[in-house]
């Protein structure tokens, strides 16, 4: 083990600093505010620090390490040029409060990204300010709330979410002050229109739903759902976490949605960084646009003594929406993430549809290959599809309930068995509506060979002696971690006193 807090070289610092500017009088901290005890930080020289973090990195699994079929997370390859671009001083070293004429490049890229997302989603106006999907949800729901307040429809206090929804949907709506109405899914995992019709009324502010849904199924009745909600006077909100399945094929606009968030860190390849950062822009139809958080990037032909930007013939500027809800992040959102995603988008341009086609091709192929290999290995009776369907979209679910019933093998056991074989495990136990669920999303950036080999390994895991599988993983840096112990013996920081 390498422990950061074991490093305590008496004089060490990982980088020595130049001497401060000389002053006539030494600046002071008020007497009662002088730091009494220095933080007990470690003391490392640079070589020690580099070795520690390199050691840690080797105990971590990323897309670069191996196949990462984590459903709902769209773990596609992150092109490296995007990282190079994000370090250019024109993005790394700019301040959001610099005057517009210092930021023409940033504004033009923001404008281009807003426009691109508007086109892809069939929305009228996009803001890039929200910094993650959940914040996008919250922002859009806030806009809908202000929209209704503006119209004097304050009685719309409820938001409808299907029981298969991601946890952030109800959490975001509740944070904005809404009551949550959960509707059950049909036995096949699809949305229940009757259940929706039964709850949609004059108290409905919005319905939040993702399509394809969290089981990877396209909700063919989506337009009917939009009509039900609209007829009740409510708004439709599209959770864009699954956008990778439909880009260039259909759009939230075509399905009748009024608002949408994008997870740029999924669909547009902002690296997920072990948990973040992300970027969660939202798009809305014109009637919600005046409520968006500001400012937005806009452009016009130069007038008066304005000169065209250094970028093109337009003048780029910030624009404050008329009835803006205000801000959800203090600045302009995760600009650095937006730049990476812009670089990613430029790679496909009008060809973004190919990205979604290949994502869906790979998901369906993997589903097929898993069934094929399981049959060959004689373990096809140990799982069933999470939902019956001819074609899945960019991801699919399997229920390991039969394995559990027959052999006591849980979805978690299978997940740990896959770790031993050098794979990241699929998402497990989500969505909650599929028992012993494994949710598998290969993304478009995996080769057929990778998918075939994974399918073989998946079948082999199911052939493993159940006892051995309960003990998996055995090849990883640590074996199964005791989460109950962690919660009962809370140790949330280095215990110096030991």
């Amino acid at each position, binding site marked *: 083990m390498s422990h950061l*807090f074991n490093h305590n070289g008496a004089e060490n610092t990982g980088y020595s600093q130049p001497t401060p500017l000389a002053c006539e009088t030494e*600046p002071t901290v008020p007497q009662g505010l002088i730091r009494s*005890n220095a933080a007990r930080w470690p003391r490392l020289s640079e070589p020690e620090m580099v070795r520690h973090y390199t050691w840690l990195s080797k105990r*971590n699994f990323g897309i670069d390490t191996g196949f990462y079929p984590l459903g709902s997370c769209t773990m596609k390859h992150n092109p490296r040029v995007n990282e190079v671009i994000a370090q250019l001083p024109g993005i790394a070293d700019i301040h959001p409060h610099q*005057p517009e004429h210092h930021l023409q490049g940033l504004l033009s890229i923001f404008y281009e990204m807003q426009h691109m997302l508007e086109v892809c989603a069939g929305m009228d106006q996009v803001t890039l300010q929200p910094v993650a999907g959940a914040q996008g949800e919250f922002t859009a729901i806030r806009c809908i709330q202000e929209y209704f307040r503006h119209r004097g429809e304050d009685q719309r206090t409820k938001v409808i979410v299907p029981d298969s929804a991601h946890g952030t949907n109800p959490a975001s709506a*509740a944070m904005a002050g809404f009551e949550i109405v959960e509707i059950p899914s049909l036995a096949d995992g699809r949305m229940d229109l009757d259940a929706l019709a039964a709850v949609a009324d004059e108290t409905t502010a919005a319905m939040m739903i993702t399509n394809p849904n969290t089981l990877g199924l396209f909700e063919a009745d989506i337009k009917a759902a939009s009509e039900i909600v609209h007829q009740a006077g409510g708004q439709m909100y599209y959770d864009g976490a699954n956008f990778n399945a439909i880009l260039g094929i259909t759009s939230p606009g075509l399905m009748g949605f009024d608002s949408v968030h994008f997870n740029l860190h999924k669909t547009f390849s902002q690296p*997920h960084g072990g948990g973040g950062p992300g970027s969660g822009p939202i798009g809305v139809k014109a009637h919600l646009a005046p409520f968006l958080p500001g400012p937005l990037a806009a452009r016009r032909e130069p007038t008066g003594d304005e000169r065209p930007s250094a970028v093109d013939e337009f003048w780029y500027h910030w624009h404050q929406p008329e009835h803006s809800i205000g*801000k959800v992040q203090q600045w302009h959102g995760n600009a650095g993430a937006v730049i990476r995603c812009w670089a990613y988008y430029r790679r496909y341009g009008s*060809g973004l549809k190919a990205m979604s086609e290949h994502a869906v091709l790979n998901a369906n192929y993997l589903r097929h290959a898993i069934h094929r290999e399981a049959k060959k290995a004689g373990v096809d009776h140990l799982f069933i599809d999470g939902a019956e369907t001819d074609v899945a979209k960019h991801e699919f679910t399997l229920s390991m309930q039969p394995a559990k019933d027959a052999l006591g093998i849980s979805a978690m056991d299978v997940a740990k068995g896959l770790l031993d074989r050098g794979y990241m495990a699929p998402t497990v136990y989500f969505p909650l509506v599929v028992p012993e669920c494994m949710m598998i999303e290969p993304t478009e950036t995996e080769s057929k060979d990778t998918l075939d080999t994974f399918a073989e390994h998946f079948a082999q895991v199911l052939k493993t002696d159940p006892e051995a599988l309960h*003990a998996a993983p055995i090849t990883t840096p640590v074996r199964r971690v005791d989460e109950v112990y962690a919660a009962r013996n809370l140790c949330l920081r280095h215990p110096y006193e030991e």
Partner: protein
Amino acid sequence: MIGCSPISGGLKQFIMSGTRMDFHIPTVRSVRAMVDQLPNRGREAEMLQEMGLSSMEDLFSDIPDDVRFKGELPLPGPQSEEEIISDARRLLGANADMGSRPSFLGAGLYRNYVPAAVFQLVTRGEFLTAYTPYQPEVSQGMLQAMWEFQTLISELVGLPIANLSLYDGSTAAAEALTCAVRVHNRKASQPNTVYVSALTPPDKMSVMHNYCQGAEIDIRTIAHNDDGTINMDSLKEAAGSCGVYLEQPNPLGVLDEGLTGVKAIIGEHTALIVGVQPVSLGVVEAPGHYGADIVVGEGQPLGSPVTGGGPLYGIFACTKPYLRLMPGRIVGRSIDVDGKEAYCLTLSTREQHIRRHRATSNICTNETLIALMGAMHMALLGPDGLRDLAHRNMMACQKAKEVLAATPGVRIVHDAHHFNEFAIEVQGSAAACLDYLDSNGIIGGLDLGRWYEGTTNQLLITTTDQTTLRDIESLSAQLALWAAHGEVSA
């Protein structure tokens, strides 16, 4: 589209023509560009055939025709990596980066030097391309790094508990307010009420309003004295509320000793929330040592460039009574089945994926990688390095104060202890003065008229470890000229 006057016309023209100068026109060569991201291009037929399908179309047979996109997306064609980077250089090159000229703009974001090792290590694919550590056995690296981050922050602010980041300083402050209400509302004599320094920058205040309105939390303000310190009479009104939010240094750079007496006034059942500039804590007392219950802040000055305002990371630390109602992910140290030291996410029953609409926050994706950059920077600094860095910030600030105090037409607004920024009064309007400085190649700080009423002749001047004597002298010389020029035009 809104707000861009000739918009709809301009937009259509753009979509139709597809030949705008700044966008790439597709060529046969660049259509191949996307092949480098799609390993199965050329193998579609083989894969489809195996599934018993005959075309890519068959994969989308479940999508009804009436919601189908017809034709190609009206966007410019694909580009190769070389074309993309060349466009990126051209477009981003049109921005004026702060390193290209003397800059005194901070106001919440600070350009400290970030050591090279941080960038080199953080872009290792094992960190960069991982998701949230849901499978702890293969995520020990990031989990341990975040547990270490929690320790570094906990030590820095003097509180026992820290999470592994929120989105930024503003959402951390906003979530601290809602957390304070969750914890104290039952016993509060002013339920659903929090008090916030009147100096809080309006953009941050706006985030607070958005986060608080859902729980119907009333945000009231606390006044400050003319010298920038907190007004104790005004503060007294906050007793019995759920929480008080103050910054140290305050948004005008003033170090306020008065904060050490706040907890005694507001009492046990009102949370003292202190917003910090983390670098200052190398020399300034940790708020945990003067009664803070929650400490929040913008982590960016430790580990990250300013990056146009994001990605950043929000610091959130607290005492034990807040633990089970706090927002954000937390790593705990545990053991594996062999009893070996191991790390995992813990206390997740507070979070949205389990608690859904009753979660303490909706946050899921956070800012882990930027927090990791922070941890790396902190590890390199060590306690002495942090003290030196804080000292350099203060020395640059002091130097700027000394030089500007002697500059004709400039007045230092607060006779106070400052950390790394301070307000000055200039002749005429601050906005016009900023334009003048800009036309002479200087980013002159923040026009405080953007933040407050009655301060349209004030600038907030920020210095960091990157500020040089020449920067300060140029600013002084130009401000003197502005004063003279202002007199001429008056």
